[in-house]
């Protein structure tokens, strides 16, 4: 599974980011959520940017501590906080900018699809984020 983003339905309300930051950091600040909303043209457009859980995941490839792996159940590329050495290479090589440093633990964090029930999708009031199933390698 993965999260599909429909920019045409996104209002930029960031309720998804609140839900994500709440789970990731036990507090509220969209900067500490694991997805981004990029605005353009005076907010005429709002682009939700979510982890692709790439088939060839550069974050996983560059991690020197082998802290990043694929969850076989959900297909999510996940970080094992206990193995993370806080080097930040994963964030540096993520082209989407959706890996962040946890403000309190100092470890790196990324979308893990909330174990198969993404809270951002549940929080979205417009259907701009939805769960998609692609089968195959992403099953």
């Amino acid at each position, binding site marked *: 599974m993965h999260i599909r983003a429909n920019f045409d339905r996104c209002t930029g309300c960031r309720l998804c980011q609140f839900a994500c930051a709440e789970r990731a*950091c036990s507090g*509220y600040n969209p*900067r*500490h959520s694991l997805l981004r909303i990029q605005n353009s043209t005076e907010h*005429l457009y*709002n682009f939700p940017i979510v982890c692709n859980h790439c088939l060839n995941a550069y974050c996983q490839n560059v991690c020197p501590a082998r802290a990043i792996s694929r969850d076989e159940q959900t297909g999510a590329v996940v970080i094992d906080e206990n193995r993370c050495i806080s080097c930040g290479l994963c964030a540096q090589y993520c082209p989407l900018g959706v890996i962040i440093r946890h403000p309190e633990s100092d470890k790196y964090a990324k979308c893990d699809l909330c174990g198969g029930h993404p809270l951002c999708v549940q929080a979205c009031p417009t259907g701009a984020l939805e769960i998609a199933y692609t089968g195959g390698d992403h099953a």
Partner: protein
Amino acid sequence: MPNAYQGTLLHIDLSGQEVQHLPVPQWLRETFVGGKGFGAKLLYDLLPAGTAPLDPATPLMFFPGPLTGTKAPSIRACAVTKSPLTGLFLDSYFGGEFGQEIKYAGYDGLIITGRAPQPVYLYIADTTVEIRPAASLWGQDALEANANIKRECEDPSLKIVTIGQAGEKRVPFALLSCEFNRQAGRGGAGAVMGAKNLKAVAVRGEQLVKVADPEGFTKAVAQAHTELEGSDDIQVLRQTGTASAVEFANEAGLFPANNFQDSSFAKADRLGDKGQSKHLWLGNIACLGCPIYCSKIGAIRHGKYAGTISDTVEYESAGLLGANLGISDIRAVTHLTRLCDVFGLDSMSAGGAIGFAMEAAEKGIIDAPDGIDLTFGNVEAAEYLIRGMALQENELGRLLSQGVRRAAVALGGDSEAFAQHTKGLETPAWGPRGALGTGLAFMTADRGGCHQRGLPAPIEITHDEYNGKPVDPRATEGKAAMVMEMQDFSAGTDALVKCDFATAGIAIETYAAMLSTATGVERDASFLTDLGARIWNQIRLFNLREGLDPSDDRLPKRFFRDPVPSGPQQGQHFTTEQTAAMLEEYYALRGWDASGVPTSTTLDTLSLGTLPRFVLNS
């Protein structure tokens, strides 16, 4: 235990170039909560009595509330200062994301005093606070300056409040531009910022806002979302923003036309949601954390103004820059509103001032400038005056930029008879003849003639029930109690700081539940209404101290002298007996004496006599 406060107020003195981090006193949280409450208390305590609004000593303050920056839906922030337009207390509200970013930077408010010797902007990133030169930004419009600061800082995620040229030139109704399509419009906070030589405040923050009882808070927030989804009014706002109010107000005979000469406009449908959806709208946008997405974003696609990006032309702008000027082309009204936004003028006061000028020309009190056809319906004349007011580039513009109260004094003659203002604040786009409670709300609003402190009009005009009884729009009885209850509700929840629209769905008990679980201090609905009364009286004390004459608790002369000439309210006008009766009852219910001054008993009941004074330690 965490709570939804960050615990710190940031004070920047631009004269001394000094920065202070001040703890938020516990008593201030308990008695004034945040937002409008903090503003009411701090402006009273920090402004030296009798200080002119544009004096460096006047504080310009930005306050989120305890719920701002959390996932509580539809919460925003306010700017508070002394109004250069009215000389009274000014609180002006804005959505978007700037208020939340103040919390994320770690603050429960920004207090800016003094005057920089040269143009500057403030850069605030958590505990880093820098006063940076802004000479190159001076003269730029509000959105140009916003873009250039983001470019200079190489940070598009900054949240920035700017002024346009009108603020730089200290136009008394200059606005604050709080990112795209979000303005703190009324009362001239932009002029106070300009008088401080402050072009912008740019903020970014990495702090988290945490709540005391996460589980309880989640439950309360879920309840608020359920109430929003269940409200028909919210569904209308979600579909059209306030644009659909145009046709409602017009059909009710409350919609101002030609400087309030009439109360309905034949082509109102072109200015409302039908006209706007056809010519402008493309999609929906929302403020941070709001599921209502009342904003209808779009663009003018064809014609003279093609390419202009537009949010909803909300009701007030459609009324005051449209029908009130006799203009029915929604694309032209969009263009005029956009000019106000980028130059930094309150579109409501601007519309009021232009309507006043058009009527003055109609009556032969002023001569139209060369080449300008200063008649109702003329878009070019309106544009000429907006430029004239904002850029101070022509004589008539300079006169009108002082607001209709001062313009009428300068012109003399009978011009006061059609100067539409209360205490200097231009009348909002609700002509109250035929809805007596709405008139009382304008008369008694704390910042001058204002519709956001309680607007009985929709209840009155539909004969809806209030407290279980159908409301007669043309009766005086019961109006004082209704207006006072609305004002206390509004002031109490503006301490949070709520969006006015969301209150059509979220119950006051739910606001209290969100506040309780966020802060860890149990509060009920009556706490919020008592808080509203305390804030209202604190502001009355400020206004009286700063020279408010209670005899100014009155409506524009037109609403007494000129019966509505046509439409559903034809023949309606106020009488002095009606307004005196409502005001007498209102003062008595408020616990004010017959001259409109709070009694000592009232102040004691609200604990206003015994509270400490808030000081800036130096």
